[in-house]
């Protein structure tokens, strides 16, 4: 089975972080509802940390 690829274009970096944060929340809720557990691995440095809800 092959995975899907999606590109989401946002206007500003703030929009980018907002969209990523909302995606994390959406996936987290779905995972908890489905399996009672959500796991996430974040890379280092700065950018992904901005998306942490």
């Amino acid at each position, binding site marked *: 089975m092959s995975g899907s690829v999606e590109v989401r*274009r946002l206007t500003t970096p703030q929009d980018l972080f907002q969209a990523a944060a909302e995606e994390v929340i959406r996936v987290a809720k779905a995972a908890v509802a489905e399996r009672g557990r959500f796991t996430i691995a974040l890379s280092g440095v700065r950018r992904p940390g901005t998306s942490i809800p």
Partner: protein
Amino acid sequence: MRAPAFRGRKFSFSGATNGTFLRRIQRVITAWRKKPCCQKFPFRRRTSSASSAKTRTLPRRRSLRADSAKVFRPGTGRISALRSDPAGHGTGWPHRVTVSGDGGVAGEVAASGGQLGEKLNTSRISLTLPVLNAARQVAFLVGGADKAAVLHEVMEGNAPGEKYPSKLVRPSEGKLIWFVDRAAASDLSPSV
């Protein structure tokens, strides 16, 4: 309030009086102070000469045990959020990205200071491609004009994945999302 029962008693150490006992303790402490650090604290790990004393030197590579590797079977991880640096390396640690693997069953965690780790005074853990590609969802966050050229190369170029490991991140049973801002996407064609 009653005085402690031992007040006024003389303590002995191998039959010695208080003064002798204290002198013996002082000699033990003096001898201990003269010992080299590694003998004083045998439980302390040796530190790298290039890194700060606060930074522990971890093993260069530590393979996951079999019972840990099963966590990374395809589709079992939930989400991985990555950042793409200007050079197109998915993790930002180019010298540690592993571009080969057995398709996702076995994962490997590298923990070491590394050149950049020492620069930032930290240790790190690198997830390799088989682990990343076993995630249910992977997200790249790419922002800034300095990423435009490399994002174009990663998304539409013909360069091999060994040059841009971000191209090799393809969850086998999951979803890959690129979050890009306008500046980073300025070199992308509208069809992407």
